[in-house]
């Protein structure tokens, strides 16, 4: 097997500048066939820009990129025949019905007429849209829209899928369902390049890259990435979690304080500081401390420790604390 067949996406120093602003900065990627590769980062970090370059609709400023063996500079049209793309913004025709959208994309992708009914059937089944074929797409809820969009991107049975934040704005149950679908497809041998800013979804990826301000700051399987973390993470269980968070967050020595589910995580602080300061602080404020323990870091903890304090402040509002977790 050739290099391209094993690695459907290969990039080297891929860069995109908008005027003087560098949106994607010297990215090297090697994506293996049949994996779900997650591209994680806060809004504005360059995820969509990278995907658009790989799909052949945005010319890179410099660097190399080959997708399915085709050069993105010269063979963009060949790439387009063999990939499926779901953009970040819902982009099917809202004024067409479910069936009309499928029929249209089936036609655009030139699905042979003896196969189209079967493919449509498969998509309707997968998207759980059977019986709603004649409904206007505008009337579907976000979760269903996303599954229909995925379905349209799958009609021509592409071997490589680009999904740009496919689950943003989708309720947790639908997100779960969506990831199950992605897993099934990966098991069938499809390669999936998916971006997300939900940290909890990262655990579902075979491998992932953290992207921040256009640069990749960590890359590997979720386990590998967690192992790179040198700093300790403490988990605190207590009453009045929101108040406790506010109090602890005022202390610069505690580096980073995060709400993680029903607990508080302290990242990067010294052990004795945590063991002494926190119980005292909470007691002073009449907050009941249940437990402090050192734990295995979550991916979110790793990300936070990687990007540094300054950047954390900048993005804290939109990115952290993370969205409601799955399940």
């Amino acid at each position, binding site marked *: 097997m050739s290099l391209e067949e094993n690695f459907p996406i290969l990039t080297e120093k891929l860069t995109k500048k908008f005027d003087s602003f560098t949106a994607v900065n010297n990215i090297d990627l090697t994506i293996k066939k049949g994996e779900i590769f997650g591209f994680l980062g806060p809004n504005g970090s360059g995820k969509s820009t990278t995907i658009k370059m790989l799909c052949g*609709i945005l010319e890179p400023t410099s660097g190399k990129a080959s997708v399915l063996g085709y050069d993105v500079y010269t063979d963009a049209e060949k790439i*387009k025949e063999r990939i499926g*793309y779901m953009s970040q913004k819902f*982009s099917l*025709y809202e*004024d067409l019905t479910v069936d009309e959208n499928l*029929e*249209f994309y089936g036609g*655009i992708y030139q699905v042979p007429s003896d196969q189209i009914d079967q493919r449509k059937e498969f998509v309707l089944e997968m998207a759980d849209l059977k019986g709603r074929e004649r409904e206007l797409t505008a009337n579907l809820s976000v979760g269903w829209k996303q599954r229909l969009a995925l379905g349209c991107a799958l009609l021509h049975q592409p071997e490589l899928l680009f999904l740009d934040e496919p689950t943003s704005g989708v309720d947790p149950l639908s997100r779960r369902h969506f990831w199950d679908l992605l897993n099934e497809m990966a098991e069938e041998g499809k390669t999936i390049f998916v971006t997300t800013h939900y940290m909890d979804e990262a655990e579902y990826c075979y491998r992932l890259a953290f992207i921040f301000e256009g640069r990749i700051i960590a890359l590997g399987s979720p386990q590998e990435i967690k192992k790179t973390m040198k700093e300790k993470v403490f988990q605190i269980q207590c009453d009045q979690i929101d108040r406790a968070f506010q109090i602890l967050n005022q202390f610069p020595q505690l580096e980073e304080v995060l709400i993680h589910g029903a607990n508080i995580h302290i990242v990067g602080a010294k052990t004795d500081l945590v063991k002494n300061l926190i119980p005292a602080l909470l007691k002073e404020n009449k907050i009941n401390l249940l437990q402090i323990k050192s734990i295995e870091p979550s991916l979110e903890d790793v990300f936070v420790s990687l990007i540094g304090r300054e950047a954390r402040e900048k993005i804290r509002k939109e990115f952290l604390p993370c969205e409601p977790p799955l399940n």
Partner: protein
Amino acid sequence: MRKKISQLFRKNRITFLVKKEFLQIKRDKRLLPTIIILPIMQLLLFGYVVSTDVKHLATAICDFDRSAASRQILSSFSNSEYFDFKYYVKSQREIKDLIDEGKARIGIVIPPNFSKKVALGETAHLQIIVDGSDSSSANLALTYASKIIRAESGKVSQELLSKMVVQKPIPNLSPQLRIWYNPNLKSVNFMVPGLMATILMQITLIQIAIAIVKEKELGTLEQLIVTPIKRVEFILGKAIPYALIGFCDVVLIILVGLFWFKVIFQGSLILLLFLSLIFVFANIAVGIFISTISKTQQQAMSTAVFITMPSIMISGFIFPVENMPKVIQYLVYLIPLKYFLIIVRGIFLKGIGLKTLWPQVTPLLILALVMLTLSTRRFQKKLSD
């Protein structure tokens, strides 16, 4: 058999694009009225309100001759519905003042030796003074006046001929001026074909630009350019539905023109429809070009107006191109509307065919092809930075 045909169509992406576009047009509550009601409204508005027929012009008379001959010619003026004799004055100066004050639009001066010259069969001069500040009605007034004078001149010369013993030159009252093709000078006859051209231009050009930019705004274009669709397929898939709509508008305007305004239509309908198609494609090319430089529907709309309005002004829709500055006259060569206006008016009013129209058809066709090629090239399956 049917299966074979449907398979053939399934092989063609354009079919799917056209079908999709029509579905969207059908469901767009604003578009259908724009396509049907707007042309009719424009037609009625221009046909009636901006009618350039000039009637009942306030006229000042200065008759130095006071003879039977002068009274006769004046009565033929007053008998026409164009001139209302409001003032009888004693000097040219008074006429000038009346016109300056806006009280009179036209003055007629009959010199003292008028009847003598007519009787002798010499050329008799008759002075017509018009208010040039309103050039189009001034022109029309002059045209009416010369028409009346010509008729009168014919009468006088016939009378003289019947009385004549010796050969004498036939007297002239005015230089020859003939009005062809629109003998009643009814402005609707001139307006309706012109409107057909301008409305067709606006509808097709603006609608296609909006239709493409709308997909840009909604993000559906981004989804589409990630598919293996070819540029030409996309362009034709957009162009065909709007060309068809333009076609329906042509028929609609002709019908309203014929049955409502009773416009004369002398030529071949098939030829007109065929040449309209070329014109439509030229406009679609401009529409596509606009879509490549606009990010929002608003921008597309104002760019379209920015292009169509001046084109309408300078291409001979109302004001004759020959009267324009040289620079503009050269510029007009690049505007398809100029050629199409001559074509539509020619077919409507003169009933002329391809044989006479080819000097217009050729540049129109070339412009359409060049513009289509350029804008298809400009339309890239890429996002702009």
